[in-house]
């Protein structure tokens, strides 16, 4: 297809001046949306609540003096506001969402339905335990799936996301080390690690020691083994790693780590590549979080919520945090205090109030029961197959640093194929938006230059993959051929042109402020 060069804007920043302005500012089905605070009128409300008589007698003299400053809208206005906002978003339901490391797979609607069953959704965490046996049963069923699939004896359910799971894992390790009467303060983290790994290690009070990557995108096992010592508490490996590769020397590294008296923490964000086929427990893993919002498809919801249960090895099981779900033969019980803990449990503490992300548990359990162990295995295989298909189909026109393959569930490219074209990884990604695609993960992992990490997941049909491949191939070839118009200042067809992130950070505007009212607080 040849370029229409009238499409080339005068400057990469400017709007297409050929577009016809509208009176309303809206454009067909695309409505611009004011802030909710710019709408409404005093006294209006979208919820009818009967007025009641009440006295201030019991407010301890602390009754609110100033108004809150919320706008008043009717229900129809609120619905229109949020429906219009939603129409400015891309979504898995509407298109391929190849964000590497993020696992944007299909979110079954059955999971949403089950999560809303009153027996799961409308129960209180501190209700009498005999009244919540159904919810406990669901959690325990999920625990069985997680421990069985990972081949690990125990799982801590309370962590609320992957990073929280990492923290839980490292604190378990810290407790185990202290129980041994030792002090170890170093954690080895590969340079390819996700940012949460070093950040978590720091929060857990450890010193982060970076392990380099090899030419071929693996963790440098020799360098790692060289770094092992009496002060090393653990290594934090991601496997399959963030380059989308399985660590071939994983067991050897695990053995070395154990031999050095340290523990093997595995970042399980990429478990979706091997679930049902490989058990991390068999690889020597001591602790691993599982992002239920990735591998087991609880919806990402625009950034959360997630859930990050942590499976634990025999070595660590005893130190899992509170609360602990047990079954005493005739009913389930949630152990919420250390001294109630049975058979040698020495919980290191508590990760959060209550007992975890029930809303995510019910969805993940539904997902697992729907797939079955066979379906989960098939899903992993399809995810890996699809990623390799993309790698094989694009590596001749885009540059794949580890292109000889095979990869696992995601295919990594770098920006060397764009060298000299004047097109950057960012331009390339933004141009995908005009084509109706969400860009891949960019500039991560840090170990390759201008990284583009593509994770198709198992949810895409071959037709969909072929279409995606065709578009990316054409874009790559155009870029190389100097046909760069579609990249300059892309996107042009999205609800917004490129946004100025520098300005946003230089003078942060983080909230709406009433024009008239003074700044809130003191």
């Amino acid at each position, binding site marked *: 297809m040849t370029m229409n060069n009238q499409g080339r804007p005068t400057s990469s920043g400017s709007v297409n001046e050929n577009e016809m302005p509208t009176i309303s500012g809206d454009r067909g089905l695309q409505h611009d949306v004011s802030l909710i605070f710019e709408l409404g009128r005093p006294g209006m409300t979208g919820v009818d609540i009967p007025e009641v008589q009440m006295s201030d007698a019991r407010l301890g003299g602390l009754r609110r003096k100033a108004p809150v400053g919320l706008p008043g809208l009717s229900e129809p206005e609120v619905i229109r506001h949020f429906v219009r906002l939603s129409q400015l978003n891309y979504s898995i339901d509407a298109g391929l969402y190849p964000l590497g490391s993020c696992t944007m797979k299909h979110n079954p609607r059955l999971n949403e339905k089950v999560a809303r069953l009153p027996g799961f959704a409308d129960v209180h965490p501190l209700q009498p335990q005999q009244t919540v046996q159904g919810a406990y049963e669901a959690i325990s069923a999920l625990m069985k799936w997680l421990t069985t699939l990972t081949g690990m004896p125990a799982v801590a359910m309370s962590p609320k996301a992957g990073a929280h799971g990492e923290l839980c894992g490292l604190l378990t390790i810290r407790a185990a080390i202290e129980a041994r009467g030792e002090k170890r303060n170093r954690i080895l983290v590969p340079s390819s690690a996700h940012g949460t790994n070093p950040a978590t290690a720091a929060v857990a009070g450890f010193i982060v020691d970076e392990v380099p990557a090899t030419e071929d995108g693996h963790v440098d096992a020799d360098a790692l083994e060289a770094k092992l010592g009496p002060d090393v508490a653990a290594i934090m490996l991601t496997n399959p790693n963030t380059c989308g590769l399985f660590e071939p020397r994983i067991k050897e590294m695990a053995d070395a780590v154990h031999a050095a008296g340290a523990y093997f923490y595995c970042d399980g964000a990429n478990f979706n590549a091997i679930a049902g086929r490989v058990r991390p427990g068999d690889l020597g893993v001591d602790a691993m979080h599982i992002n239920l919002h990735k591998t087991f498809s609880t919806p990402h919801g625009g*950034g959360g919520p997630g859930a990050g249960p942590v499976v634990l090895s025999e070595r660590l099981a005893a130190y899992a945090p509170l609360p602990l779900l047990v079954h005493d033969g005739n009913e389930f019980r949630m152990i919420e205090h250390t001294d109630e803990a049975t058979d040698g449990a020495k919980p290191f503490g508590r990760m959060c109030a209550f007992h975890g992300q*029930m809303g995510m548990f019910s969805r993940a359990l539904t997902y697992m029961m729907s797939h079955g162990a066979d379906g989960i295995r098939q899903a992993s295989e399809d995810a890996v197959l699809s990623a390799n298909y993309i790698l094989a189909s694009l590596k001749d026109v885009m540059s794949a640093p580890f292109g000889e393959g095979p990869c696992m569930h995601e295919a990594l490219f770098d920006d060397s194929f764009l060298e000299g074209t004047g097109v950057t990884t960012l331009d390339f990604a933004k141009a995908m938006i005009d084509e109706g695609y969400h860009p891949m993960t960019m500039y991560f992992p840090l170990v390759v230059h201008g990284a583009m990490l593509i994770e198709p997941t198992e949810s895409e049909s071959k037709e969909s993959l072929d279409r995606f491949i065709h578009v990316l191939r054409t874009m790559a070839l155009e870029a190389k051929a100097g046909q760069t118009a579609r990249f300059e200042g892309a996107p042009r067809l999205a609800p917004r042109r490129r946004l100025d992130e520098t300005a946003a950070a230089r003078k942060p505007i983080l909230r709406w402020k009433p024009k008239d009212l003074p700044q809130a607080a003191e």
Partner: protein
Amino acid sequence: MRYLPLTKDDRAAMLNRIGADSVDALFRDVPHSAVVQRSVFDLPDTQGELAVERALSKMAAKSKAAGSLPFFCGAGAYKHHVPSAVDHLIQRSEFLTSYTPYQPEIAQGTLQYLFEFQTQVALLTGMEVANASLYDGSTATAEGVLMAQRITKRPKAILSGGLHPHYAETVETVAGLSGVVKRAPVTPGKAEDIIALIDDQTACVVVQSPDVFGLIRNLKPIADAAHAKGALLIAVVTEIVSLGLIEPPGAQGADIVAAEGQSLGVGLNFGGPYVGLFATREKFLRNMPGRLAGETTDAAGKRGYVLTLSTREQHIRREKATSNICTNSGLCCLAFTIHLSLLGEEGFLRLARANHARASALADRLADIKGVDLVTPSFFNEFTLKLPKTSASVVDELAEKGIVAGVPASRLLPHDKDVRDLLIVAATETNTDEDCDALVHALSGAVA
């Protein structure tokens, strides 16, 4: 399997393009000994919707839903009516199945509601800035303590006795690592007890109001005492609806507010997911944990929103980040924002008044029962009763009768003998007169 679009033929064709003769070949790097067969998993096979839904509905039916009986549990999670529009809107594909808004040009929907959420949280708490959420109130409190330790470069955190015990334990677990966490006595739990503990090593004082017993605390004197010693005041709110009736922490001198937003839009969910609200003053902005949505303009000069100040965050700063959080409570923020937008000023204040009126009336009736005393002179929609016997046994007895009377203080503080007879009772707009009659009647019987 209904969720997997690839057919046998597709797989064969794809392997062919790849040049591999089987999927196994793609797992080349996996140690053979580590590859297991389907058979090693003692787990069922694929099941259709009908079967799965049947099995799980049966399971769920073994729990007693809060909406199905007279229900008075609070202590950190509250039963409120969520308008039907909320659940409809958060299930829109474009909200439900989108990722963190890393591509702002096609994520303005998410970014704008986060900006609106931040504004609402700032307004409610009376603070200058708020972030785009943390996991929940307890982890937000812990993050607040870590932030205070960073800002003051001091180790000690003082926790008021009225801080929800789960919150205190969460703080101890993380903030205790590199610092010191001191808990003030639960009872009597006067402001003086807390103030007495503040010294020049104190990074922050953490005070919850209404506290875990429902008591409304005056934060000002504690804030002044803390500030006088160079420490920060972290105010904790577990029932956000209370701020429709009570002075916001920002107006009482709080430096950081950590709150639980579950009451608006989210529901009980058996403890999660919830939404952690986190607000502070502008000057502490760069020490703040969590994501921030900010306003900017696009290349065409149109107003738009982006994630900003990410130099604080793990994906940029790695071990030097202000927190390790990545995924937060996105969709719960949306539910919160929609619910609060529906309420508006008028509705939110009415809701707060309705809650207080309901709780006050119930407290009066329960306190009239012989042997039952109200131990919280001030409260919002939750109060504590002293019973003539251990509250845990009473709660079990009433549960048998199909009434969930509240939370026995001993469930949270099993080692504190003084609280053995205390019952924490919450009442909201969802409690009917019949519910209250049932509780009054049953409790009278139980303590007679």
